[in-house]
């Protein structure tokens, strides 16, 4: 097998004529290393953000099999998320219904600094939001908008026991201190613009989020964040760029200073200050959307207040560490002692020491201050620099064996170096323009250390061409030995920014197989075929409570609908079996279908626009008689005297179905 695969791969590189030489690095036993036999399961789940598709895609590792796409900030026609009446509220914001976002960073919940497989937190960069996905159901269960934020990029970073999920703004904006931004001249960036860092409290049992307080920070651009561990576990670190405070042509304006800052925030102290009354309060206006786990109905709450701290009033809470030119990634090693800052325009990677930082604070080795926040001396916190690591360092992850791996965007490679002596020990080309890289658990206290996934922005010649737009690629690299070995690449859905992975045994055994019908608390659920109904509720509104089971819907003949009526189809899936969802679609519906999980109820809104007979049917192949799982709805002209009538099959004609037309 290995020989055959090796030959094939060699053959491939020959036909490519060495245009890129891009197969050279593939190890000869790669096929065996990633082969997961049919019916066998992968060792790890990985969660890749979909970037501009607003979704998370779940891949098995090492096979690279796509297991699921989870819609978070985007409407998803596949299952009706964001279209069905139950889920629409999940996408509500203070800007109205926003059915899209730019999803950058998935982060797994943690217990004692290690992934625990309970929840996945993700951020929406465009319309600042943080969402929580429940890993029992792999569904988005909560979406919270963030006030005073604009471009929620350095987000969402859970502390070691999910005490807080922390989210910082990428863009600073002129806050009007009333929940919006001021009408301010764009010349006034330097004086008027501010950023914010949000501290979201997480319920230790249920995972529910709550915005506890914010810190209003100087008007830089906050890029990425990472939490401390071990000795540094009370701290969270943020890279910033644009310390120049340029408000226009940032590519030049924000690239002038040789050093920007790493912002270090003592989150425990901040929480203490907030609790002790240092926090002020201001009006706000943001949405908090939650999916009820029994009714599967999402509800929005509009929050009207937010508490905030000012760093200048909270001594010891925040420090700035000078970091070489436009830093991007900040990554704390598993021991919690080293903070690696990747200056994307810098020629060396600085590694800071947490112990030195503590000493510098104690000895007041300051280099002035910015907006009342002490700036520490660069040399006083520096452990050393990784010299000539490559071009364009972006992100670093760790294998738990004393090695760090940094992605190099410009030189398209992964560089392995040692944390103790900061010497580069290996390099591996990747195809092409790698952004984030991920080692399962590589940002936790105990990395898995076997694989590394490189997430590349550009694929060019990697796959069969598909017109101007090409898939992005993830590449799986074996890091178990001294030398890195390329194993696999697989196309990804939209642009993966970051990813997290976890051993399957922490997630798979808890997977929900179906919802218990008895626990279905949906207000329009019907749990027996005998209880279905069609009711004219008002002049133009008809409510259909129906059931679906292999392989029929009850009722499947509905009459008495009139042109102009809005019909709510509440479909309850009566199945109590794993992997038997039923779909529901009506001809001419202006939204989508809906996919109803076993035991759940979902609602599709449909407006009768013209007289006639319209079919509805099940869209998810459910059984040998799936094609026959269909029905008709008859629409009569406005004001006609056809009474409401419904049935399924001749025998059941006597279903008491009388609901009078007004």
């Amino acid at each position, binding site marked *: 097998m290995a020989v055959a695969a090796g030959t094939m791969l060699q053959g491939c590189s020959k036909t490519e004529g060495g245009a890129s030489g891009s197969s050279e690095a593939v190890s000869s036993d790669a096929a065996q290393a990633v082969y997961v036999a049919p019916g066998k399961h992968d060792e790890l789940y990985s969660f890749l953000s979909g970037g501009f598709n607003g979704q998370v895609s779940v891949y098995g590792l090492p096979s690279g099999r796509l297991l699921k796409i989870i819609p978070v900030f985007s409407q998803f026609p596949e299952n009706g998320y964001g279209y069905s009446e139950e889920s629409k509220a999940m996408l509500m914001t203070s800007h109205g219904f926003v059915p899209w976002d730019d999803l950058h960073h998935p982060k797994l919940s943690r217990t004692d600094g290690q992934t625990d497989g309970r929840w996945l937190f993700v951020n929406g960069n465009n319309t600042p939001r943080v969402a929580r996905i429940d890993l029992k159901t792999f569904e988005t269960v909560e979406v919270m908008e963030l006030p005073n934020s604009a471009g929620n990029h350095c987000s969402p970073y859970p502390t070691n026991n999910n005490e807080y999920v922390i989210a910082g703004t990428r863009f600073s904006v002129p806050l009007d201190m009333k929940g919006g931004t001021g009408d301010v001249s764009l010349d006034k960036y330097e004086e008027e613009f501010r950023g914010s860092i949000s501290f979201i409290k997480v319920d230790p049992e249920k995972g529910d989020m709550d915005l506890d307080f914010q810190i209003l920070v100087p008007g830089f651009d906050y890029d990425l964040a990472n939490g401390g561990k071990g000795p540094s576990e009370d701290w969270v670190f943020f890279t910033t760029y644009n310390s120049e405070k340029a408000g226009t042509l940032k590519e030049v304006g924000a690239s002038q200073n040789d050093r920007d800052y790493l912002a270090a925030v003592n989150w425990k102290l901040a929480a203490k200050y907030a609790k002790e009354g240092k926090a002020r309060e201001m009006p706000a206006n943001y949405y908090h959307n939650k999916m009820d786990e029994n009714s599967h109905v999402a509800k929005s709450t509009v929050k009207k207040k937010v508490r905030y701290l000012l760093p200048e009033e909270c001594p010891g809470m925040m420090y700035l560490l000078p970091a070489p030119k436009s830093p991007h990634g900040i990554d704390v090693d598993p021991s919690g002692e080293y903070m690696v800052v990747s200056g994307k325009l810098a020629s060396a990677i600085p590694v800071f020491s947490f112990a030195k930082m503590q000493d510098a604070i104690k000895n007041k080795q300051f280099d002035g201050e910015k907006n009342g926040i002490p700036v520490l001396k660069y040399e006083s916190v520096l452990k050393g620099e990784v010299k000539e690591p490559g071009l364009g360092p972006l992100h670093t992850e760790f294998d738990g064996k004393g090695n760090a791996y940094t992605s190099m965007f410009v030189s398209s490679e992964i560089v392995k170096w040692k944390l103790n002596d900061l010497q580069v020990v290996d390099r591996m080309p990747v195809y092409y323009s790698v952004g984030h890289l991920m080692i399962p658990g590589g940002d936790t206290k105990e990395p898995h250390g076997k694989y590394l996934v490189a997430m590349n922005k550009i694929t060019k010649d990697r796959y069969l061409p598909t017109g101007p737009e090409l898939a992005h690629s993830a590449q799986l690299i074996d890091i178990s030995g001294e030398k890195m070995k390329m194993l696999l690449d697989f196309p990804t859905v939209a642009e993966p920014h970051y990813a997290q992975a976890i051993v399957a045994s922490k997630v798979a055994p808890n997977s929900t197989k*179906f919802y218990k019908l008895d626990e279905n608390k949906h207000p329009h659920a019907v749990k027996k075929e005998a209880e279905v109904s069609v009711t004219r509720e008002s002049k133009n509104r008809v409510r259909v409570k129906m059931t679906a089971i292999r392989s029929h819907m009850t009722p499947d003949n509905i009459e008495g609908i009139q042109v102009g009526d809005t019909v709510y189809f509440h479909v309850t899936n009566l*199945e*109590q079996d794993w992997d038997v969802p039923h779909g529901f679609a009506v001809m001419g519906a202006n939204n989508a279908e809906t996919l109803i999980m*076993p035991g759940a109820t979902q609602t599709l809104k449909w407006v009768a626009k013209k007289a006639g007979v319209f079919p509805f049917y099940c869209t998810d192949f459910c059984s*040998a008689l799936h094609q026959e799982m269909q029905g008709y709805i008859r629409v009569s002209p406005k004001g006609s005297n056809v009474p409401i009538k419904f049935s399924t099959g001749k025998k059941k004609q006597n279903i008491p179905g009388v609901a009078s037309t007004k």
Partner: protein
Amino acid sequence: MKAYQKILMIVASLSLGLLFVFPMWKIYLKAPQYPEGLELHIWVNKLGGSSEGVLQNFNILNHYIGMKPIHAESFAELQFMPYIVIAFMVTGVLVGLLGKRKLVLGWTGLLMTAGAAGILDFYLWLVNFGTNLDPMAAIKVPGMTYIPPLLGNKQLLNFEALSLPALGSLVIFMAITIAGLSYFFSLRNQTIDAVHKNRKVVA
């Protein structure tokens, strides 16, 4: 009867209470789409399965071939069988207390008859469900009936059905055995008594 024999008899009758703890029979179905299998558990007083939705899933699958839905309510047996079991327990304890050998034999015989009747009843239900099919069924295979096996396995279309007595049946079997032992030991009492009597005569 000696005390330990009476106790044996009482243990035998009380052990029938385990019928409310364990199912009597299990029917296993396996098909490519059900790698985890479906199990129907038949109890003395209810129907159940390996998981909550099993009965419903049995019925969903059976409806394609026109088999009547299986519901606990459709079996009068499940209503009165618990009383029979309780009756056996009560009478068994009484028999044990009275310590009359012939009553023990009678009780054991009755229990064996009841067990056999139960199996026959079960078989008749299987035949009834397997052959009494809705003529409007979606799937009709000429000449095919769907009587599940009483014991052992059988291929029914895409399903491999396996039927086996479960712990509950073993409980009945155990009760019969223990009661039988009680009787058997008491037989020896008689022989020993007889020997004693004979000795006296001789003496």
